[in-house]
């Protein structure tokens, strides 16, 4: 599997993602500069990392979505490559209309940097196949604009298509107002597109992929992706 991690001006989790993919997961990984473009087939997984692309000026992700690299990301997504947007990467994906809805300022207007519990709502996805459905995992959040919003019509579509992948919950898995750190509708922490090959989430799986860092719950996202491509390539070689 070939991975690419995009660096926008202001990205600050790109090296963490690179480290996890390359050193923890042992995958062939390249950094991609935001001004570069790439061929559809160059990468199986493209990660849009966390940070403050373009200083979060105007709206988080609003300017980064016009970076040249995003044209390649869109084309790669169209032919079924996987795109993972983490935190600011999620914000870029909604601004680019690759995922529905919007990410607004946290309801308490504060920057939240702490661990949260999230529930796996959909494990029928290349990103989450190794989790149990309904499993409660611990990941870190660090954002000021993670308040997911979508109108009712869009929310209905998200539910009907099982596009809600992660929801904030408490340690026991209860999804309620108290376990919602930022005001997101329906406690949404992560969603995917209808096709299932683009995932955006506010929590940082790359920060919890090694036990020494307090949790390795995020590692299974990367393991799921690797398993997905191993199977896909095994099928391809049989055909």
């Amino acid at each position, binding site marked *: 599997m070939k991975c690419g991690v995009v660096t926008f001006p202001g990205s600050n989790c790109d090296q963490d993602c690179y480290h996890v993919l390359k050193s923890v997961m042992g995958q062939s990984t390249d950094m991609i500069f935001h001004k570069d473009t790439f061929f559809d087939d160059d990468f199986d997984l493209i990660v849009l990392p966390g940070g403050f692309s373009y200083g979060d000026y*105007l*709206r988080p992700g*609003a*300017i980064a979505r*016009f970076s040249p690299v995003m044209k390649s990301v869109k084309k790669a997504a169209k032919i079924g490559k996987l795109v993972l947007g983490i935190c600011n990467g999620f914000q870029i994906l*909604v*601004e680019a209309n690759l995922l*529905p*809805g*919007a990410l*607004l*300022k*946290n*309801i*308490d*207007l504060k920057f939240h940097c702490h661990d949260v519990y999230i529930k796996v709502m959909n494990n029928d996805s290349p990103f989450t196949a190794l989790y149990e459905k309904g499993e409660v995992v611990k990941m870190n959040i660090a954002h000021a604009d993670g*308040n997911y*919003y*979508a*109108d009712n019509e869009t929310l209905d579509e998200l539910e009907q298509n099982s596009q809600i992948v992660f929801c904030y919950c408490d340690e026991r898995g209860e999804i309620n107002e108290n376990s919602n750190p930022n*005001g997101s509708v329906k406690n949404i922490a992560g969603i995917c597109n209808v096709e299932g090959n683009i995932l955006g989430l506010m929590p940082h799986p790359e920060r919890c992929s090694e036990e020494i860092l307090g949790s390795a719950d995020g590692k299974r996202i990367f393991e799921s992706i690797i398993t997905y491509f191993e199977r896909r390539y095994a099928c391809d070689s049989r055909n």
Partner: protein
Amino acid sequence: MKVKVEVFFKEGVLDPQGKTVKNALQHLGYDEVDDVRVGKVFTLSLKTSDREAARKRVAQMCEKLLSNPVVETYSIDTVEETR
């Protein structure tokens, strides 16, 4: 020509900044304040004197970049003709 663009959250989208400012005003004794919406203002200086053309171009700018049509609305005003 100078053009003023205002961007606000759509009705129905919660505006936590507006809510916080409203509470602060009420705490200061301005009980008549019923609602506050916080928005953004952009002043654009354009190298054109064609009002209609400018308006069309600025509307495009709003749709593409200055506002997020998912949650925001915009309004455009020509504030000053320069020559």
